[in-house]
């Protein structure tokens, strides 16, 4: 069963189209990393899935519900952790836990207390006097306490010190191991979230640039080193070439939708001496996809 299903989703702010024709499904139990440069609509997408922003086009199903019409019921089983802290500033962690618990039938007070202890959250400090890192850790513990089936996490690691980032990652990994929660999380910390994702979506200027399983990335996108018989002046052009560079008779390409046949076709007009290919790290793939000038494909 799909935890999330989007078909041709579109969202505009006034006349500006922020998200256009976004379609993807997330099966239950999958962990999906939502990557993209600043301003590509990651936060807008996550907020719309929680029913905080109306959609203008397409349909969205979150755990089988429409977030626009059924937000209150949906939010009992979906946890959303926003980038900004919106907790009551005069309340402490335990007070917030006690305040929120009656709203959620599945609230797990024991799990909340355990998470607070593991995340080293102070029991007597009001939110307003907590550091940003402590606030985010408390938000995570509060988001997990109602035992959500689906987690939407907006930049869970942003602006945190390495210890706090580890604690947040450990809490997410522990939740996955114990409950198999479905997760969609946005992040700029590409290297740090890569190991916890089953799949990666890359957003770029309002549309999806890439949707791929983590383990197939290295096959689908490859860097190719070509040694030619003679130096050349121009690189081949093709929508699947994400980047290209020449040094004398050395050609270096980053190709998407890689196959041996596609590579042979691209190099048909060159006298090739040697070809070597290698996979890229997620960080390199992100830069290759999101960093280049838009090319119609």
């Amino acid at each position: 069963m799909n935890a999330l299903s989007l078909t041709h989703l579109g969202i505009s702010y006034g006349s500006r189209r922020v998200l256009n024709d976004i379609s993807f499904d997330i099966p239950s139990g999958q962990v999906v990393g939502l990557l993209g440069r600043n301003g590509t609509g990651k936060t807008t997408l996550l907020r719309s899935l929680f029913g905080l922003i109306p959609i203008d086009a397409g349909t969205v199903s979150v755990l089988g519900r429409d977030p626009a019409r059924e937000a209150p019921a949906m939010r009992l089983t979906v946890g959303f952790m926003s980038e900004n802290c919106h907790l009551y500033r005069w309340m402490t962690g335990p007070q917030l836990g006690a305040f929120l618990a009656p709203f959620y039938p599945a609230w797990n007070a024991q799990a909340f207390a355990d998470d607070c202890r593991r995340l080293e959250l102070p029991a007597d400090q009001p939110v307003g006097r907590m550091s940003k890192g402590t606030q985010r850790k408390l938000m995570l513990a509060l988001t997990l306490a109602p035992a959500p089936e689906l987690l939407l996490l907006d930049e869970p690691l942003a602006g945190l010190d390495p210890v706090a980032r580890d604690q947040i990652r450990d809490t997410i990994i522990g939740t996955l191991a114990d409950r198999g929660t479905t997760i969609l999380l946005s992040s700029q910390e590409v290297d740090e979230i890569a190991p916890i994702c089953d799949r990666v979506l890359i957003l770029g200027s309002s549309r999806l640039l890439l949707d791929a399983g983590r383990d197939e990335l290295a096959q689908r996108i490859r860097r190719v080193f070509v040694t030619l018989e003679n130096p050349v002046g121009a690189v081949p052009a093709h929508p699947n070439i994400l980047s290209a560079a020449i040094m004398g008779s050395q050609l270096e390409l980053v190709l998407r939708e890689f196959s041996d046949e596609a590579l042979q076709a691209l190099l048909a007009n060159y006298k090739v001496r040697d070809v070597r290919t290698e996979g890229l790290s997620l960080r390199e793939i992100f830069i290759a996809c999101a960093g280049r000038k838009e090319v119609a494909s």
Partner: protein
Amino acid sequence: MRRVIRVDESSPVPIYQQIVEEVKRAVLTGVFGPDQRLPSIRELALELKVNPNTVAKAYQEMEAQRVIYFRRGQGAYISPRSEEERVQEAQREISRLFRQVLDIAHSLRLSRTRLNDLFRQAAQEHPDMKEEKP
């Protein structure tokens, strides 16, 4: 058990494959002995900071390759293997490394003769490999 298994998150090699290779190497070098218990999926996921699904996939793959076996309700253990199996595995590992060396030698345009000389020389200089037992 700590720090025996490592993964490189910036490597393009899928993480579950890295875990499989790391465990096989540890078995090969004798770090993991027969019937030794492996960490649980949860423990290893937390230690490596990776998705538990990934560790589960690595364990499934290792069970299929008979590197490990499961005892019901108790976790994963290293499969015992015969000396013959160990030697075969070691030879596969060395062949794999030789292929990498050959790829590099090819791109550096070194002849086979030169490569043979280099190998003999390196073996001579290696403290544990220089004297071939008759």
